[in-house]
């Protein structure tokens, strides 16, 4: 039996039992082929069925899902009519790279034992040969110290390293098909580039056939040969990467491409010099007991200052661990700063909620990232909004109901939603309710902590538009925290970059369009994948940092150990000065403006 395509899927349908007990078709009539050595990307929003299709390639249906149609991978078919059934090929000829490698590794065993395990279980190789192959893969995946890294435990490795190790585990049996299920979604952008480069190289080197599941078109453009666009379990478009990105035929593909670059339509007009509303002055904060010099045991923020004008939007960006969420927690009074002060319209705010007046609390509202846990599942939407109205404005009964309806109208939800509970709403709807709860207080400023990060691109665009409209119409100010510079630039007039709790750069939005930047800002901006196939290849491998061996010090530049342009003799002796660039942005760096451009 010789067939041109290596993976063949015909009329695939997956049916589950819906909440009302009737069968619900979550994947409908999907057909595609993948040739040997090619990578096919499945792209779509959450709920589009992309993971379900990927899992059915392994002959696996989640929780009672019924798979019908014809799937063939190599000589294995779904119904077992070939020489082997699909399910028996799992882990050997068909392997899987999951989204969260941190959760996929056993914390009690050394990583190399886990990476070798598939080869030993399926007896493809002797332990010695498998170990050698694992080390080769570590080298191909650009892991540091490939000879010895395997003897570490998962908690000793970073998220990006674990994700690469998981790819090594998937490739160790030299499989016919590797399924990548959103393998870089949980990583920081700066980490993502390196992981993508490693994946790409290893896939090419091994000639592996892959199915790459993602919601991010720009990532997929780097990894795949063909793209299959899915929406509600149906194929919307299927084409080669270049053709699909240049000339999308389907309107849904066009929507996805447009959403990759958020542009906010409603631009608020802020006065050139707005009166300051919220001032954060020299705030240091952290967790754990505070020592005699006033420093907490685990410092998170050191000496952060920023000012937000009335009706202005200030963005804070940084990778995980940069302390950006801690800024919001300090302003909201959930965490007392170790030193420094927060001032609201000239009035100093008490360090914690307990010391603030109800009026001060009303004026500062916080919105958390994950609406699933930010809304109490035991309460209805009306209860949630009504409580805020009663608490701050003493509105009750019919008056409160009218205001709830107004609020729901403001966030573009039907008034009938008030009677529903939050678990009956979609992700985007929940995030709107989450926003409405903050709006119910009629605040002067809303602290948005990664409010768009858990959303699909299309929904994210809609929420950003809503935020911008609310700002224009209600004059509310935002402290907008995100890890995504494109989102922040779309909404905010001013952007602050945090690195390890230190403000390394701040400036107006347009100063982030062209250099000079702080080297870290440069890294952040250049790490965001672009929507063209060749980007990853053009993107030079991150040059090594000359001072990477320096011990961690809070006195010197915090970025020193990762900075590709650090100057020995200058950066490792004194703390960096704050420099104002001619474009107006302020950069904390030893390099002068001319040096930063060059």
């Amino acid at each position, binding site marked *: 039996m010789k067939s041109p395509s290596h993976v063949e899927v015909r009329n695939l349908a997956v049916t589950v039992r819906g909440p009302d007990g009737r069968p619900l078709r979550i994947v409908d009539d999907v057909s595609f082929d993948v040739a040997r050595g090619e990578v096919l990307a499945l792209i779509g929003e959450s709920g589009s069925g992309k993971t379900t299709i990927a899992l059915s390639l392994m002959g696996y249906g989640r929780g009672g899902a019924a798979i019908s149609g014809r799937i063939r991978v190599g000589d294995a078919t779904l119904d077992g009519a070939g020489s082997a059934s699909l399910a028996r090929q799992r882990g050997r000829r068909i392997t899987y790279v999951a989204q969260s490698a941190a959760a996929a590794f056993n914390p009690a065993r050394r990583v190399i034992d886990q990476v070798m395990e598939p080869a030993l279980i399926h007896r493809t190789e002797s332990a010695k040969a498998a170990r050698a192959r694992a080390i080769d893969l570590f080298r191909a995946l650009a892991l540091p110290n490939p000879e010895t890294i395997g003897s570490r435990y998962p908690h000793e490795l970073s998220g990006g390293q674990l994700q690469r190790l998981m790819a090594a585990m998937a490739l160790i049996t030299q499989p016919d098909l590797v399924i990548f299920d959103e393998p870089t979604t949980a990583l920081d952008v700066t980490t993502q580039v390196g992981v993508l480069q490693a994946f790409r190289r290893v896939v090419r080197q091994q000639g592996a056939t892959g199915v790459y599941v993602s919601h991010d078109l720009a990532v997929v453009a780097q990894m795949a040969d063909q793209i299959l666009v899915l929406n509600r379990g149906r194929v919307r478009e299927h084409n080669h990467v270049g053709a699909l990105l240049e000339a999308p035929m389907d309107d849904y593909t066009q929507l996805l491409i447009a959403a990759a670059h958020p542009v906010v339509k409603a631009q608020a007009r802020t006065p050139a010099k707005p009166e300051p509303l919220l001032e954060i002055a020299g705030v240091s904060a952290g967790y754990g007991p505070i020592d005699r010099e006033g420093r907490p045991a685990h410092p998170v923020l050191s000496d952060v200052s920023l000012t937000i004008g009335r009706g202005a939007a200030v963005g804070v960006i940084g990778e995980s661990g940069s302390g950006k969420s801690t800024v919001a927690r300090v302003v*909201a*009074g*959930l965490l007392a700063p170790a030193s420094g002060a927060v001032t609201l319209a000239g009035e100093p705010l008490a360090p914690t*909620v307990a010391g*603030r007046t*109800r009026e001060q*609390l009303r004026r500062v*509202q*916080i919105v*958390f990232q*994950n609406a699933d*846990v*930010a*809304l*109490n*599942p*035991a*309460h209805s939407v009306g209860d949630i909004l009504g*409580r*805020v109205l009663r*608490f*701050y404005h003493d509105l009750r009964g019919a008056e409160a109901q009218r205001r709830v309806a107004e609020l729901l109208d403001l966030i573009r939800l039907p008034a009938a939603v008030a009677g529903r509970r939050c*678990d009956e709403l979609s992700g985007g709807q929940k995030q709107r309710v989450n926003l409405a*709860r903050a709006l119910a*207080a009629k605040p002067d400023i809303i602290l948005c902590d990664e409010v768009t990060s858990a959303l699909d691109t299309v929904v994210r665009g809609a929420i950003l538009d809503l935020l911008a409209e609310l700002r224009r119409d209600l004059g509310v100010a935002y402290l907008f925290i995100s890890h995504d510079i494109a989102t922040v630039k779309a909404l905010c007039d001013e952007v602050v970059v945090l690195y390890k709790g230190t403000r390394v750069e701040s400036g107006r939005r347009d100063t982030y369009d062209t250099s000079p930047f702080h080297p870290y800002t440069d890294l952040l901006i250049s790490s965001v994948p672009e929507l063209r196939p060749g980007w990853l290849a053009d993107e030079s491998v991150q040059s090594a940092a000359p001072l990477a061996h320096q011990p961690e010090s809070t006195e010197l530049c915090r970025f020193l150990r990762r900075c590709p342009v650090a100057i020995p003799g200058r950066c490792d002796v004194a703390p960096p000065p704050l420099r104002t660039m001619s474009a107006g942005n302020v950069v904390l760096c030893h390099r002068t403006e001319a040096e930063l451009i060059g």
Partner: protein
Amino acid sequence: MSRGSPLRAVRALPWSGKIGLVLVIFWVAIAVVGRFIAPYPPGAFVSYEVFAGASGQFWFGSDFLGRDVLSRLLVGAQFTVGLSAIAVTIAVSLGTGLALTAAVGPRWLDELLSRAMDTLISIPSKIFALVLVAAFGSSIVLLTIVVSITYVPGNFRIARSLAVGLTRLDYVEVARARGEGRIYIALIEMLPNMIRPLLADIGLRFVFIVLLLSGLSFLGLGLQPPDADLGSLVRENVSGLGVGALAILVPAAAIASLTVGVNLLIDAATQGKVK
């Protein structure tokens, strides 16, 4: 919990839950009306034969003194179901109340309450009850108090671990940032999200209490004659075990069906519709 009509909720129960529901309703009904439908006064000697078998006159036969087993069972159920229900209510209200106080209160209070509960839990429950009953003599009020206190620490531990998990959740943080008081956070934000696991705990504790009360009665330290709960019925007729008398089998079966019924119902009610 679904907010639809109770009838819909019943229909959604699996068959095991329906059986449990029937058993629970049956025993609650017996507890309420048993005293009025009993054919004979529970203390009356009505049969000349002891440990008689079933007959048209005495459905479940007679006991070791020739009293009607059915009548004694109907009256005894009232004590077992009633006392256990009251005791479990007190135990769970106290345990959960203190647990919420510990979760939202200052750290020293949490520490104090937790250590106090650890001390209490380290005393074996039956010995604790025995000592108190021996010291103060047996009365219904004392029995209820002793049994309630015995089961406070267990409920406290479960409720506290649930509550502490919830205090870190974003919706509780949002309420805190809004400036809500501790009582509001405990009762409105946290308690409704603890109900499901707490119900399972209540079911378990109800069964423990039925068994502890029956055990105490069996030892002769529970309800004192002429009152009798299901446990005392088993004890007083223990000499009939050799002859397989209904007088001992029926009360034992009654205890079993009550505890099994409560557990079936609570299991079904708490398992359903978990996403």
